[in-house]
């Protein structure tokens, strides 16, 4: 809402510069977005919150200024106490068919107006807030809207067919050409003003072109009314047509203001365009019962944390237009003015007191409340642990959009059949809620490669979303890791390409840091992954995710040339196995003995099969067996692999003798020879 400083001064004496006024208004809740100097005037751009429709008018803002600065509000008086013909309701017929959507309708006829240019003062007022002057009558209706907050409309009475208006719902198939020059199709929920034939205005939103006041107009019908806020809001939204008028009706206009505005407008029109008023019709609720609120002054201090004397509380509220109805020691009964429909309860009055008293005059204290027990839920603790482990492993965290296009999902060969669909996306990029964060990961990888960041170790912790059979939805936390490019060891080592095993190593590091020891992988085949290197990740035998190399076709869709390795884990399933509590284990007192063993086996024999056989055959003194070297080619026959394992033997209660270590080791060698056809190297 634009407020001209000079115009505002018509309604209240202001003894301070515009900048200072802006500051006072801002600190009282009328946020000022800007103050601009404009040909001897200052224009304040106010942001009026939806609870304060009274401030969508000059008189409303002036009332606020008066209360905040201790000045008197100067409302223009009606010189003509009654407009002539006010009580002769025969100049025009008005019928309100839908009283629910139009509880009050007033109409006034003025005959013999001379349409022309607006007087200078009027033009200046409207132009100061960026409005184009149309003609004297239309300008007055606009002026009154801004002055009082009550939208007005003037119809060319001679173009109202049958000389009668009806306020009714639009009929199926009805259309209207409105004054912005567009034809609008109406439906039966919309309220219209109609003449004997067709709609001549969309009630509270915009008038029709047929009855628009123009140069040839001589007789007018002035309208001021109260339309149902929800109905106006729906109509305005359906038609995507928001006007100064609909904006105010949506926020409720002041019922008490209608008659005043009607007479004020008539008076100004007759001054500017001549003519004679002939009839005034007023249908519906003439007055609204005023709200009376009980205020307990001790609640003011209780809520605000500052002692404000009851007398000061009362003074503030009276300055805002409240009327004292009665008071006892503990209760102040106050009647709320019609323009302040936002004030409904005691707390609303306390806010008024706080705002005028000044938030900055309320002291600062610290709340005396402290949660007992854990300060973080387990899921946040686990997520933070995951973040820290991955970060120290050299991975950087990314956050990608939860909303994606169907196209990107299919580019990643992900299944979208259970994906939740957004009903009102702004663009195709927001069609679906992601059922997986792999597409987002690939997008981030492509974005970086295009900017010459080609060695990437990334992860994302965030939710994935699904629709469920019962028409409901579910969401769960999810972890994605993505690797591509090379790993560098400075100038000492040679760079090498990242591999599946780097990703698997990160996975293992992560599990161990979360206290998860029982995990394994199982060959698998999943949408976005290459069948050559894809596995499900299992914790305690339960699959919780998948890792592997991204399929070449998928990479091509994303225009990525390097190999990409991705891990995706259901972090809620993961969380069930997390064991963050630590227990002390005394370090082994007796030394361990290490023996290396190099064997040659067929390529088809898996490491897991060998480890499992070693563990089974070595007996209980074997503490650990691990692969330390793997070699193919050269001296090894084709189709064979050379593997070197380091076996560590240890007993908790004594130092092992060389002989028993040798025996166990020989047992392992024999078992490998007999069961897997291994030969020693």
């Amino acid at each position: 809402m634009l407020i001209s400083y000079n115009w505002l001064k018509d309604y209240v004496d202001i003894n301070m510069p515009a900048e200072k006024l802006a500051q006072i208004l801002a600190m009282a809740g009328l946020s000022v977005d800007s103050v601009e100097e404009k040909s001897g005037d200052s224009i304040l751009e106010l942001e009026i919150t939806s609870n304060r429709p009274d401030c969508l008018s000059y008189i409303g803002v002036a009332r606020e200024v008066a209360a905040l600065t201790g000045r008197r509000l100067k409302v223009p008086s009606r010189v003509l106490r009654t407009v002539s013909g006010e009580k002769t309701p025969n100049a025009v017929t008005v019928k309100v068919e839908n009283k629910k959507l139009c509880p009050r309708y007033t109409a006034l006829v003025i005959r013999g107006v001379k349409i022309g240019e607006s007087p200078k003062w009027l033009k200046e007022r409207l132009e100061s807030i960026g409005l184009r002057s149309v003609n004297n009558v239309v300008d007055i209706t606009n002026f009154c809207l801004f002055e009082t907050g009550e939208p007005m409309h003037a119809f060319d009475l001679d173009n109202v067919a049958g000389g009668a208006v009806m306020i009714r719902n639009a009929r199926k198939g009805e259309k209207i050409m409105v004054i912005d020059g567009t034809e609008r199709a109406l439906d039966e929920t919309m309220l219209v003003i109609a003449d004997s034939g067709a709609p001549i205005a969309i009630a509270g939103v915009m008038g029709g072109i047929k009855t628009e006041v123009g140069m040839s107009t001589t007789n007018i019908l002035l309208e001021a009314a109260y339309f149902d806020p929800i109905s106006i809001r729906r109509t305005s939204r359906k038609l995507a047509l928001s006007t100064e008028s609909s904006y105010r009706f949506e926020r409720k206009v002041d019922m008490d203001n209608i008659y005043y505005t009607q007479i004020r407008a008539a008076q100004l029109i007759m001054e500017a365009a001549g003519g004679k008023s002939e009839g005034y019709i007023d249908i519906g609720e003439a007055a609204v019962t005023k709200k009376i609120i009980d205020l307990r002054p001790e609640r003011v201090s209780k809520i605000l944390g500052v002692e404000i004397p009851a007398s000061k509380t009362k003074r503030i509220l009276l300055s805002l237009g409240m009327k004292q109805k009665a008071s006892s020691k503990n209760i102040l009964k106050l009647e709320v003015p019609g323009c302040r429909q936002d004030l409904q309860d005691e707390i609303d009055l306390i806010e008024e007191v706080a705002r005028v008293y000044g938030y900055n005059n309320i002291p600062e204290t610290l709340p005396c409340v402290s949660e007992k027990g854990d300060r973080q839920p387990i899921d946040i603790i686990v997520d933070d642990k995951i973040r820290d482990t991955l970060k120290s492993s050299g991975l950087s965290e990314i956050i990608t959009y939860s909303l994606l296009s169907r196209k990107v999902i299919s580019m990643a060969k992900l299944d979208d059949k259970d994906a939740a669909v957004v009903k009102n996306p702004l663009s195709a990029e927001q069609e679906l809620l992601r059922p997986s964060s792999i597409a987002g990961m690939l997008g981030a990888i492509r974005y970086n490669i295009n900017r010459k960041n080609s060695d990437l170790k990334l992860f994302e912790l965030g939710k994935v979303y699904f629709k469920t059979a019962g028409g409901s939805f579910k969401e769960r936390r999810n972890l994605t890791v993505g690797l591509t490019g090379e790993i560098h060891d400075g100038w000492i080592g040679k760079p090498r390409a990242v591999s599946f095993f780097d990703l698997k190593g990160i996975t293992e590091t992560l599990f161990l840091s979360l206290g998860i020891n029982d995990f394994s992988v199982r060959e698998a085949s999943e949408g976005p992954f290459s069948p050559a290197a894809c596995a499900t990740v299992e914790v305690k035998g339960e699959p919780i995710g998948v890792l592997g190399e991204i399929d070449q076709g998928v990479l091509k869709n994303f225009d990525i040339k390097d190999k990409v390795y991705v891990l995706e884990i259901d972090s809620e399933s993961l969380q069930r196995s997390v064991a963050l509590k630590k227990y002390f284990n005394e370090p082994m007192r007796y030394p361990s003995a290490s023996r290396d063993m190099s064997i040659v086996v067929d390529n088809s024999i898996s490491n897991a099969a060998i480890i499992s056989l070693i563990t089974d055959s070595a007996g209980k003194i074997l503490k650990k067996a691990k692969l330390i070297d793997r070699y193919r080619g050269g001296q090894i026959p084709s189709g064979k692999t050379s593997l070197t394992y380091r076996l560590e033997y240890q007993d908790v209660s004594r130092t092992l003798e060389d002989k028993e270590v040798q025996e166990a080791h020989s047992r392992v060698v024999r078992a490998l020879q007999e069961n897997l056809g291994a030969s020693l190297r």
Partner: protein
Amino acid sequence: MKEKIKEIEQGALAEISIAGNGDDIEKLRIKYLGRKGLITELFKKMGEVPPEEKGEVGKLINSLKNNVAKALDDKTGSVSAAGGAKLEKIDITLPGIIKETGTLHPVSQTIREICGIFVSLGFKVVGGPEIENEHYNFEALNIPLEHPSRDAFDTFYLADKWLLRSHTSPVQARFMEKNKPPLAIVIPGKVYRPDATDASHSFMFHQVEGLAVSDDIKFSDLKGALTVFAKRMFGEKTVMRFRPSFFPFTEPSAEVDISCILCDGSGARGGTRCSLCGGSGWLEILGAGMVNPKVFKNVGYDPDKVTGFAFGMGVERITILKYGITDIRMFFENDLRVLKQF
């Protein structure tokens, strides 16, 4: 003979004492202890010693040999400790081998920082669903259907009554329904609004919501808690300003500003209008207020018995201000050159 022995010993010890490097020591070792060395030669001359002196002279030569050998060994030790010629110096200006660590997303870091501050004030962290229903996102928070106050909360819908939460406030209502006061919680998380994307708007962003309820929470407590937050987040000299505003779920409500972190609230930098605050000296950082009694009623609390405050802030906005980031979209592009700066 005895004199000769003494002479050799003096000469040897003197020469060893001035030897400067390993090569000198090696030469002396050969000179005295080598196959044709002076001491070795003495042993060969034992035949010339009269039989009655043989025992004594033999002992003297052995002692000489041991003394010289020890002196040589000691010297070797001291020469190499002092950086002898045999050690090759390294080029210490070669670059170190860097083990690259990763980085947490700036949004995650800011969430941690915000939550950490409130945890230190006695709050606990709570989560909630991103897919919400209309009841918790709107009605429970006193935002009626088809009311202009909903305009501030444009929302993505998934189905009738199901939507993506447009703020973290629904978790307030969910938490209060299940827990009795006193309580003090912070709620971090993603929120969604169908806003056209530009440098300062994103359809997805993060918020941290806070809520404290007891029989004695006051507006002054809200001011105090948020001032502690602002000073820890933006520095001790940060000044706060509370302006009256309107949110359906709080009353009284406030917009909270901090003094501009670029111009320290002066509105000007180097004689021109400050680009960050636009010359006002203030930056809007969050919305707050006392919990509306209607919200308490909706969750089954008696508004005459409890009071509370609530606040909500945009994590990206805080991060943008803290680091001077210029475009909200950068948070979701994930350019490593940006991420690695935090």
